Every structure is written in structure tokens, then in C-alpha cells.
């Protein structure tokens, strides 16, 4: 299941490296991690035992950047190969888009390979997947070791269905990238065929070819998204994308888009607005004009557009430490209830003023008190009375 998020403008695929224990699945990921540029990949997360055997899974996210306004992300997982860990192995397969089966080429590992392949089939079936429809690449690993089985022999035993395969030596990196590229290709091919008609993702790109004026569209769209293609793990884009012009041009209904008139073209070819004519969907037609103008404006200044939503985001939720409101509130509290020496002196002077004023008031309008000049101000003014109470309580003079 390729996840397409139109708000954060991401296409996300999950690829799982499967195979018997010690066949080199984690080594594959380690090699990819070591060779791929830092801004393209995230950290390699390994949930392993103390002996460096995978306990749950290894995880390596790869973000190859923005393509046609969509960030292409691939999440590489490995499974624990040992038979013992089948429960956790099965969990990793949930939502898988493509499988790389890493087979150990050594003759004495053949049975384990076969067992693992059968286990893969069983586990996939439990999730309702069919192994025959699943994009799968076999990697015959450890080809650099002496005495390994020939590829023909391995093919005969492991690959009766004719899956594509690569020979590899994961430790030195032979065939690692080839395998990965092929599985990604198969996954994308499958995602392509899954769409029965042209959809948002495809209409956007499909629009670029047939109609010349849309050629100018691509930069307009890529401008705001470019700011979102930051180096990996940052991955802020969703907020940006939500308010970005490209996101606002999203069809509100998938059915509304047809290959002939991708709703995407309108916002992008803003220079020459041509709303309803080509668009079959009333929803889109209404949304387009305003969205279109927005897209031009914000595409001119991608930087602030990218930042402001990020800033505004926290404002909507409760401020975190360091926030103005928060610190302000904290300052007020001690003044009111726990006077520190400094504050208390300030309070005293404040109180003197109050007393003066109130005594002045008393002079003008004497109260019914029998002791004028002493108690009346305190009695008359509730504030000063309270101050006097605290004054006495804390022994402030």
C-alpha cells in the first residue's frame, strides 16, 4: 500500500528485507546507510539484541527529494531472520509495498532459505496479501564467499516463479543498490497500475506533457515545494504544504479529476486563468480561481510561506516553556502570594501610596469609625486591608 499524502505532499513506500537469519538483511541497510548522502537518509534504527542480532526490525528512511511536487520517501525495514522471532517478523510485514528476499548462497543454508520463503508466503497471506502479486526481488547474497551454490542451482530451488534476482555481496556492497533500485521500480510500477484513471498525482504530471502552457506550471508548483525539501529527518513539509498553493489546488474529490482535464493545471497556469471550461468538476471550478491567485503570491515568496505556518502552528496549541505568556504568568504568581525581599519592598512602597490616597479619601469622607486616622483606611479599602494582612503575616515593615 503506497501511502500518498496530499497534504504533506508525500509518496511513501514500505520495503521489507526478508530472509533467513544471518543472510545479510541488516548488512544491506547498513551499506545503503553508509553510502547514501546524509541529507537523503535518516538515521538507521536498529532494534537488536546485545549480540547485534535483529530483535524486532531495522529501519532506514530514505527521502530522495521532491519529484513533481511530491516528496518521494522510502522506508526500508528488515525483519529478524531467526525462526524464533516469527511473531515480530510478521508485524513488520504489515502494509508492505515490496519485498527483497535476501537469500544466503551457501549450500548449507539452502533449507533455511526455502523455509524462510515459505514463511514469507504464510505471513503475507495472514495480512491478505498474495505473494504472486507482491513486488519481490531475490538477492542471492554472499557471492564473494568460496564454495557457494551456483545461481542456476539457487534459481531452480528458490525461484520457480521467476522473480527478478540480483547477485550480491552486501558487505562490500555489490548488488545492494541494484536490488534496491529494482524493488523501488517494481513498487512504483505497481502503484502506477493501481490507478485506474489519472489521479491528482498523475494528473499533475500528465498535465505537463499534453498542454504546452502547463510547462510553465511546473516551476510555479515546485517553488513552494522546494522550500519543503529540506534535508531529512526535518521533514516539516506537511504544515507548509497544507497552506501552500499546490496543496490548495488539490481536488476535493478524487472522482472529479480526469486525465483530460487535470485540476492541477488550472492553478499552475495562473497567468492565463481558464477555469470552468476544461474542468468537469463544479467543486474544483469554484475552488480554482481563489486558489490560483494564492498560488502565485505565495510561490513568489516561498521562504516566509514555509516558515510562517510552522510558527503559527505552536500558537494554536498551548505555549511551551519559554513562551511569553507562560513566563509572564509565572512572574505574577510570586508577587501576589510569596513576596521575595525585592518584591516586598516594592509592595510596601505601593502600599504606602495606597494608604496615603486612602487616608486622603478618609479626610474628605470620614467613615463611621471611632478611631479616625488609624483603622479607617484599612477598613475602607479592601486592597489595602489585604496588603496590611500580608504585611503583618510576613512581618514586613
Amino acid at each position, binding site marked *: 500500500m503506497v501511502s500518498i499524502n496530499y497534504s504533506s505532499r508525500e509518496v511513501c513506500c514500505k520495503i521489507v528485507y526478508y530472509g533467513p537469519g544471518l543472510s545479510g538483511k541488516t548488512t544491506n541497510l547498513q551499506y545503503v546507510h553508509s553510502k547514501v548522502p546524509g541529507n537523503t537518509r535518516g538515521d538507521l534504527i536498529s532494534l537488536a539484541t546485545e549480540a547485534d542480532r535483529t530483535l524486532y526490525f531495522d529501519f532506514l528512511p530514505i527521502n530522495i527529494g521532491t519529484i513533481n511536487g511530491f516528496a518521494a520517501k522510502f522506508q526500508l525495514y528488515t525483519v529478524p531472520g531467526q525462526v524464533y522471532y516469527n511473531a515480530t517478523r510478521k508485524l513488520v510485514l504489515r*502494509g508492505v509495498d515490496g519485498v527483497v528476499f535476501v537469500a544466503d548462497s551457501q549450500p548449507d543454508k539452502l533449507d533455511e532459505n526455502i523455509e524462510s520463503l515459505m514463511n514469507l508466503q504464510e505471513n503475507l497471506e495472514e495480512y491478505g496479501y498474495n505473494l504472486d502479486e507482491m513486488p519481490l526481488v531475490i538477492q542471492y547474497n554472499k557471492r564473494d564467499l568460496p564454495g557457494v551454490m551456483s545461481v542456476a542451482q539457487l534459481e531452480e530451488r528458490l525461484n520457480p516463479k521467476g522473480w527478478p534476482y540480483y547477485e550480491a555481496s552486501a558487505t562490500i556492497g555489490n548488488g545492494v543498490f541494484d536490488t534496491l533500485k529494482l524493488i523501488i521500480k517494481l513498487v*512504483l510500477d505497481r502503484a502506477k497500475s493501481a490507478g485506474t484513471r489519472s489521479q491528482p498525482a498523475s494528473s499533475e504530471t500528465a498535465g505537463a506533457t499534453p498542454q504546452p502552457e502547463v510547462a510553465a506550471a511546473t516551476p510555479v508548483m515546485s517553488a513552494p515545494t522546494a522550500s519543503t525539501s529540506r534535508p531529512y529527518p526535518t521533514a516539516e513539509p506537511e504544515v507548509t504544504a497544507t497552506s501552500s498553493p499546490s496543496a490548495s489546488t*488539490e481536488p476535493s474529490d*478524487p472522482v472529479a479529476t480526469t486525465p483530460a482535464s487535470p485540476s492541477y493545471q488550472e492553478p499552475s497556469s495562473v497567468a492565463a486563468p481558464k477555469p470552468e471550461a476544461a474542468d468537469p468538476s463544479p467543486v474544483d471550478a469554484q475552488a480554482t480561481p481563489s486558489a490560483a491567485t494564492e498560488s502565485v503570491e505565495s510561490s513568489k515568496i516561498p521562504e516566509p510561506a514555509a516558515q510562517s505556518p510552522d510558527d503559527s502552528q505552536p500558537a*494554536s496549541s*498551548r505555549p511551551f516553556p519559554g513562551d511569553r505568556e507562560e513566563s509572564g504568568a509565572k512572574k505574577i504568581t510570586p508577587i501576589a502570594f510569596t513576596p521575595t525581599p525585592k518584591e516586598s519592598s516594592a509592595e510596601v512602597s505601593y502600599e504606602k501610596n495606597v494608604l496615603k490616597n486612602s487616608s486622603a479619601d478618609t479626610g474628605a469622607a470620614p467613615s463611621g469609625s471611632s478611631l479616625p486616622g488609624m483603622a479607617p483606611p484599612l477598613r475602607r479599602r479592601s486592597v489595602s486591608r489585604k496588603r496590611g494582612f500580608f504585611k503583618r503575616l510576613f512581618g514586613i515593615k
Partner: protein
Amino acid sequence: MADDTLIIYEEEINLIESLMSKMLKGAEARCALLVDKDGHLITRQGFTHSLDTTALAALLAGSFASTREIARLVGEEEFSVLFHQGKKDHIHMSLVGERSILVVIFDDRTTIGMVRLYAKEASAELARIFEQIKAKSATGVKPGISDEFADMTQDKLDDIFQD
């Protein structure tokens, strides 16, 4: 093959995000993530800038998945709420509908009770939205990736994946 493609459009994500930020405000929590059970991050709200949310989403989904298996082993169908307590920060996870997990990260400025209360409310509303999304995608067109997207991805991979 089980076809459970998740398509989220802007109007829905806006709704989801506003719900999440309302919950954050009410519960006074630090941030919230909405994670697919497959480990994909759907969206997030609050102070997530210092967090590697991609890895977090994968690990949280893994953690939830293993708890689910544990539940089965003890004869329970599913644990719908999961809570990790730390020294300063705590994580509250709750199930949303059938396939998503609402994760709330909070600290000592609020209480687990508040978070639970608001998360429960939000979960119920989010579940409704997801049902709508599901109904919509059942009737709508299945998404696909254009040829051009696939080709350009391949080209880019050739550049990046070099020995």
C-alpha cells in the same frame, strides 16, 4: 491482495489537524502525532521540531503492533490505550478507528487524566473522519502514480545510489 490504500485530501487533513490542535490545547500537551499502523506518519501538531518524527512514527507503530500481539496472547483482542511514563516526558497512545494511532507526548505541566480525557474525545471524532475517508475512497478512484513520477524517481535514484 488487500487493498487498503489510504488517501487523505486537504479538507480532511485540515479537519484532522484542527481536531488535534484543539485536543492539544485542552490537554495542555506538548505535541501529538497521528500515525498509521504501518508506521507512516499521517500528520502532527504542536512542538515536533526537535523530534525525528519519521523514526518515531515507525517505532511507535512497532510498539503498538507488538502490544497488540501481547494482548492476543493473554486473550485480549487489543489494548486500545498504551502509556509510557518517563521522568519528564510521557507518551499516551490510543487507537483511532481500525488503522491509526493517536500519540500524545506531554510533560508534567499536565496530567495523564487530562490527556486521556481529551485523547479519548479526539479519538472518537477522528475515527468518524477516518470512516468518512474510507467510505470516500471506496467509491472514489484509486490513486496511482504517473509514469513521469516513476521515471523521474528512477533517474534520481541512479544519481543517489552510487557505490
